[in-house]
């Protein structure tokens, strides 16, 4: 598997993401935001957590208009696999690759804790390493994780089995407890929790490991 991790000014989980992907067996290239083209031959692109461009204007808004993101959009439009964690999820909603928007947490506070999630679907390369309904614990750390989407679109997401993860004990006010969503072709995924932060024993838990292990399994033969 060949993976790319996009690095924006203000990204701060890019190296954690690269380590988790490498530990799963991937060959990882870091892609600086000023690059206009992504390296050829990538299987998957990750947009990491952080505060890209200081989250000025709106979270993820400036990053979503950066040159590299136009290449990421083209990659996704051609059927490429792209996932975003935390700020990466915010960037993906701002590009329009994923529906909805992430607003200030309902409680107005930055939340940083271990969060229980329910795996809502296993029908994706990102969630196939879990079982449906399985609960896992993954760290969250965000101020703007309140997922917002009109009620009709929420229903559509559930009808199409595109909700990847939901929160058990909603930490931020997200509609229908949604913690992660998939695109219509199931190849683009965004989630607020950080699987890369709980992916090896030294982290104090490994509930994020199947995320990366399954991703590797999906692409190792490709």
């Amino acid at each position: 598997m060949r993976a790319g991790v996009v690095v924006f000014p203000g990204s701060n989980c890019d190296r954690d993401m690269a380590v988790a992907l490498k530990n799963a067996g991937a060959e990882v290239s870091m892609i600086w935001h000023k690059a206009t083209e992504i390296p050829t031959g990538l299987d998957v692109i990750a947009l990491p957590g952080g505060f890209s461009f200081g989250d000025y204007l709106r979270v993820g808004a400036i990053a979503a208009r950066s040159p590299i993101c136009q290449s990421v959009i083209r990659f996704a439009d051609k059927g490429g696999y792209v996932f975003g964690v935390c700020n990466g999820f915010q960037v993906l909603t701002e590009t329009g690759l994923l529906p909805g928007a992430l607003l200030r947490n309902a409680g107005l506070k930055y939340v940083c804790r271990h969060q229980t999630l329910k795996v809502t679907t296993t029908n994706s390369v990102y969630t196939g390493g879990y079982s449906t309904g399985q609960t896992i614990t993954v760290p969250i750390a965000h101020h703007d994780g309140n997922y917002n989407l009109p009620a009709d679109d929420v229903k559509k997401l559930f009808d199409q089995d595109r909700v990847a993860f939901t929160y058990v004990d909603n930490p931020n006010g997200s509609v229908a407890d949604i913690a992660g969503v998939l695109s219509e072709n199931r190849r683009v995924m965004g989630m607020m929790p950080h699987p890369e932060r709980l992916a090896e024993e030294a982290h104090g838990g490994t509930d994020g490991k199947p995320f990366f292990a399954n991703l590797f399994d999906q692409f190792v033969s490709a």
Partner: protein
Amino acid sequence: MKARVYVMLKNGVLDPQGAAVQHALGALGFDGVSGVRQGKVIELDITATDAAAAKAQVEEMCEKLLANTVIENYSVEIV
């Protein structure tokens, strides 16, 4: 020419910051406030000299960057 852009959360989108401001006003004794919505104002200096052209240009900026029309409404004023 100056353009002023007002960006507000759409009705129905929960505005926790507005709610916190309302709560704080209540704590200060201003009990006649039945709702607060918080938005932003963006001022731009525009080189265009034609007001209609400037407005069209700024509206395009709103669609592409200044507002997220999934959750926000905007209005443009040429001053």
